[in-house]
């Protein structure tokens, strides 16, 4: 590679001159509509690929089914959150009003549990809601400022009117040429390599 006499701010390793091929995240195909995307996802899944993912501007239930992703433990997390809120909320009041600082109010029993129910309910909902939001973010590994798929040209359209399907390079069956050929045969508008 010839050095220019003047300083240039350019890529020192333009694609054609790279010493090592950059690690590949996968191959991404672009589709025009949800029907094509879901059909392609079903075919790719049927071809034996498992590390696949779809990208769409709105939730498509058929898509997550097509890529074989139908289970989430989020309801369990929310249930546990609610349970912690309920038990914690009630016994917080019990401990404060009965054990730590018993105060006789109008002759009512120290453990006047019906009066503790409204706050118990509120803490249940609060903890369950936190579990739902934080659980969703953690399971989705968000916030995640960088992700390889953002390198795909036109990926900004995934939040407008374009649909994408990625076959990831860590799929045991992954073979670059085969995957590209398969995706091209499924009516993709464009097929791109996704660099890490």
């Amino acid at each position: 590679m010839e050095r220019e006499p003047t300083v240039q701010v350019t890529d020192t390793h333009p694609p054609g001159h790279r010493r090592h091929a950059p690690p590949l995240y996968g191959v991404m195909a672009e589709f025009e509509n949800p029907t094509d995307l879901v059909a392609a996802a079903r075919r790719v899944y049927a071809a034996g690929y498992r590390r696949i993912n779809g990208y769409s501007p709105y939730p498509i239930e058929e898509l997550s089914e097509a890529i074989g992703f139908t289970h989430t433990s989020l309801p369990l997390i929310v249930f546990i959150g609610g349970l912690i809120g309920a038990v914690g909320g009630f016994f917080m009041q019990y401990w404060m009003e009965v054990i730590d600082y018993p105060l006789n109010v109008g002759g009512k029993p120290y453990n006047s549990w019906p009066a503790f129910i409204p706050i118990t309910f509120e803490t249940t909902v609060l903890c369950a809601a936190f579990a739902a939001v934080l659980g969703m973010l953690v399971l989705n590994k968000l916030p995640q400022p960088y992700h390889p798929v953002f390198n795909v040209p036109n990926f900004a359209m995934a939040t407008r009117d374009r649909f994408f399907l990625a076959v990831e390079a860590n799929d045991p069956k992954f073979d670059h040429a085969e995957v590209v050929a398969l995706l091209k045969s499924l009516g993709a508008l464009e097929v791109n390599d996704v660099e890490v």
Partner: protein
Amino acid sequence: MQDEAHKPYTEGPMHTTTPVIDPGLTFASVTDKISSIVLKRKTSLAWFFGFAISFALFQLMLLAITNLLFVGIGVWGVNVPVAWGVDILNFVWWIGIGHAGTLISAILLLLRQRWRTSINRFAEAMTLFAVAQAGMYPIFHLGRPWLMYWLFPYPNTMGIWPQFRSPLMWDVFAVSTYATVSAMFWFVGLIPDFATLRDRARSKPFQILYGMLAMGWRGSARHWHRYEMAYLLLAGLATPLVLSVHTIVSFDFAVGIIPGWHATIFPPYFVAGAIYAGFAMVLLLTIPLRRFYGLEGFITMRHMHNMAKVMLATGLIVGYGYIMEAFFGWYSGNKYERFMIWNRMHGPYSLYYWALILCNIIAPQFLWSKKIRSSLLALWIISFIVSIGMWLERFVIVVTSLHRDYLPSSWGMYQPTQWDWAMFIGTIGFFFTLLFLFIRFLPMISIFEMRTILPEAEVED
């Protein structure tokens, strides 16, 4: 929910006459139209004008609060026997308005009412901003607002704990939980739209701002799946929450032994009143807004009809509540209860009572007519009247019950002062300040949810 959510909204005879959204919309046009309000459209003079007025009134609120903190609670008209004046009234009024937002976003989601999609974002914002106003009143009513953190159970050097048998403590937990959960629900709903704005923004600061808020959302199918589950569960949690909040607000009254407060009808009657007032406010705000931003294709006459019907239905429940209050007053055989209802109708505040009947029971009856439901001006005026009526309702409940209770020697009269009004008008200013900022910087219609109800969103086999 998900099966139905992706079918186009065209079936049925009603839908052909008044479609829920403009049938010509596409993914691209929905995205571009809503995001351009935030990103491309030049901020209009009218926006600046409206914002300036709201912001000026917001300053009035700050002035009123400063005066209150400086001089003391005596600047308000509250005193024994009427220790709860318009400040507690305004608290109930604002929080009631907020409830329509949760109803639209959560309850209508669970009931699969897809027309909610066009208005839920806006209604949720309204909820959040109304709760912000509501929360201030009880705090500044404390007398020593700077000690408000005493309400929370934290280990302290005094070695004591709050009194959890009191509805006022329940209120603290209910309102703070409601504000937190509403904010989370709203933010979660915004995440995919932040990503849309990030990808559409042309200027670096906005790309960074929306990029940070979107948290790297990329529309992955796995993410969507968990997201939909989280959203559905949040809706399921927010539904009983919203009912519990106004129930607990009504307990503030119903657990007391004041005549006219100590009634079992209070929780359902307050919840219905909250939804009634809230839908009135949604109509009051969306009618000018859809016109101004040209959103008639998204918020159609179908929405107006539906909201008017909800208003009529809840108005009738509220009317039933008034009748039951009068009936209980008579049927209880208790002379204090009987006097209370007589005093409401014929006492010194009777004008408020009859104005309330006019605003809340007579005015909404016009909504039986389809012609009136189809007239935006008439709808707007009725909504305005209902908003006033709901304010009067709380005035009647708070003031007429307190000013003449058991002992005639402790009777008194109540008059709000200029500082009461300054605070109320100021919170209206603060509410609109937040609302103007919201419509300028955030998508006021949920973009991704609009995409799901488009005909092209359907996956064909």
